[in-house]
């Protein structure tokens, strides 16, 4: 791996990323009770994406990688594409009254499944 950085510079980079990830982890832990309580899922996933970006770019040395970077983006696109299709599908779920995956035919404990 071609690099012009010295050992000390690279090591310092690792620790900077570590501090960033620790700060974001702390935010992850306090967020549900401290701020944006009504948007916990979205905020948590947003923080997760930032952490993932830092790990991929710096710890996994993806910065400056063209072919591998394009492959990763393609794979992520495939996952995201199916994610969107599934979300559209589930948001137009037509068989809530008869399907076993919704509340009516579940268990004695009841359920709070949302209807779509």
């Amino acid at each position: 791996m071609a690099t012009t950085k010295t050992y000390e510079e690279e090591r310092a980079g690792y620790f900077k990323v570590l501090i960033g990830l620790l700060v974001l982890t702390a935010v992850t832990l306090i967020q549900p009770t401290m701020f944006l309580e009504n948007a916990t899922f979205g905020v948590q996933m947003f923080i997760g994406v930032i952490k993932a970006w830092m790990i991929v770019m710096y710890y996994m040395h993806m910065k400056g990688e063209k072919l591998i970077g394009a492959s990763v983006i393609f794979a992520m696109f495939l996952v995201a594409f199916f994610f969107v299709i599934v979300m559209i599908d589930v948001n137009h779920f037509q068989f809530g009254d008869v399907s076993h995956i919704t509340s009516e035919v579940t268990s004695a404990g009841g359920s709070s499944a949302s209807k779509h």
Partner: protein
Amino acid sequence: MSDHPYVPEIAVDREGNEYEVQGWQGDFFGGKFGFWLFMLTEIMMFGAMFMVLTYYFTLHHDDFINASASLNRTLGGFNTVVLLISALTMGLGLLKMRHGDVKGSKLMIWATILLALVFLGVKAVEWTAEYNHGIFLGLPALQGGLPESKPFGEIMFFGMYFTMTGLHGVHIIIGIGLMLWLLKRINAEKVTPEHYILHFNLALYWDLVHLIWVFVFPYYYMIGAGLSTGGH
């Protein structure tokens, strides 16, 4: 034995000169690219699992929030930090190897193995507590149609929780095995500061294991944190 004549592999450099390939050990980019292709299959596998999770989370939103609230965030958060530090030690190990500090590199790999064992130990404690509270695959609470059954959404949540954290744990165990193998290869001088692609790829693998946890942790432990019940 084959009667086929020997056909040499030919590599061409940027100036157009041809060379007969004697071995692929020096093909750093090829080794790295191949391993990334493997990791992309892992991303897509876990991506599909997250997709299933999101599907049921949308259908059974409140059940998922209630189930998540009962998980132990202290242990989950501790494991998140442990894995985060282990990613650092693995990265520093590779850095030391690249700069010729083989002994320091081995020390960092051992530190990573130790942290991985801590992670598994905490996970075992967590799963045991959940089992003692009647929440585990196969127990009545997670089976439908029984008086003690949990709501369907919670059954789905815990089913996915044990499946995904279990599969993640299997990746941790495989990672420990691979790191022990890496140490053996370093001792045999098959991995050196000049030829460290195996070390590089295992560091990538460990980062992937960390990366998956970056999403597993908030998805399972944090979405219900606003309804804290103290955990099992």
